């Protein structure tokens, strides 16, 4: 490769590298704004702004889902296995909503509970045929796998 070309190649790599560092620093500074949701631990630690629309993400804690039989009202705990946030919501839940499922809820904290205006289900990266799930459940491996996915 002749020296002139080599020089141009180094200039390009230098410029793209510098640009990468600049963008990287900006993203690092903005990282809290890029995160889609807060975790229950961040809420318990007071890191989330109060009385403002925020999102909380975590798992629906087992045995905490309460449905009002006369309305669409539902209450459940969102957990990251360290802290829980009590969520109340009135509306239609996504098909994937169930205990042990990852969810992202949008809303605001008021009087100690989180009043959600939107509930989204979060899907993990694992795909399985139903027969495999059944076999895993019987041998007690399913919960172990779910724990790993988080």
């Amino acid at each position, binding site marked *: *490769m002749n020296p002139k*070309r080599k020089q*141009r*190649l180094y200039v*390009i790599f230098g*410029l*793209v590298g510098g*640009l*990468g560092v600049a*963008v990287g620093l900006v*993203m690092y500074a903005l*990282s809290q704004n*890029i*995160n*889609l*949701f*807060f*975790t229950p631990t961040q809420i318990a630690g007071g890191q989330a702004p109060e009385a403002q629309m925020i999102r909380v*993400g975590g798992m629906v804690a087992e045995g905490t889902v309460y449905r009002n039989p006369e309305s669409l009202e539902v209450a459940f705990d969102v957990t990251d296995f360290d802290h829980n946030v009590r969520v109340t919501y009135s509306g239609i*839940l*996504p*098909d*994937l909503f169930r205990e042990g499922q990852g969810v*992202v809820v949008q809303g605001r904290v008021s009087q100690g509970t989180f009043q959600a205006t*939107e*509930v*989204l*289900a*979060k*899907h*993990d*990266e*694992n*795909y*399985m*045929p*139903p*027969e*495999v*799930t059944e076999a895993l459940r019987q041998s007690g491996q399913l919960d172990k796998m779910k724990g790993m996915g988080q």
Partner: protein
Amino acid sequence: MSWRWFHQWGSPRWFYERAGRWQWVSGWIALILLVVGTLWGLGFAPVDYQQGHSYRIIYLHVPVAFLAQAMYAAMAVCAVVLFVWKMKLADVGIQALAVVGLAFTVLSLVSGAIWGKPTWGTYWVWDARLTSMLILAFLYMGIIGLRAAIADPDQAGKACAILVLVGVVNLPIIKYSVEWWNTLHQPASLKLTEKPAMPASMWVPLLVNIVGYYAAAFYLVFASMRALVLERERRASWVKEVVGRA
């Protein structure tokens, strides 16, 4: 080391004739693999325990999302070649790849939205993965628009190549967005370094489709590059010869 393999790309005629062969080979591979992979994935792969049949959009969404990024990476290689070696064919490459890349990006955004509604409960959410993919679509549109806006082809090519190189920063952001930040989009199920997060009965047809879509992309890019080469070299005698023959 001999640079002959590289320098022959500087000859438009050599490229036009070789790419004609590569185009048909990749076209046939694409047709066979996509028919096999799509029928297998949609008709014979098992359903998912949670999502039921709606997960089958993976057989379209994942390959086109891969290609949306691969086309951009290929454009970046072309931009470097254009600046360092001043090879005209690299500019043709950028022009062809931008259109094909935009098509794959739009397809991945739309297929993802269609999957998102039944699975997440929403078509769109401003999380890092979805937003960075949308920025990729805007980059492609910007590159196509910039070329159309500058009358002088050499100037247009250089301006586009600079924009391509600036946009490269977005590629690692797309890839690692699901690991660096909290997102609604799940992390990758297929990784080069790890076992896939699904059984073989699901990922084998997916792999067939990924290779198939890659072959289809080669077909589209070569077809489009050959047409562009003919148009740009229309005053050359070999073009008159080729067109006269046809």
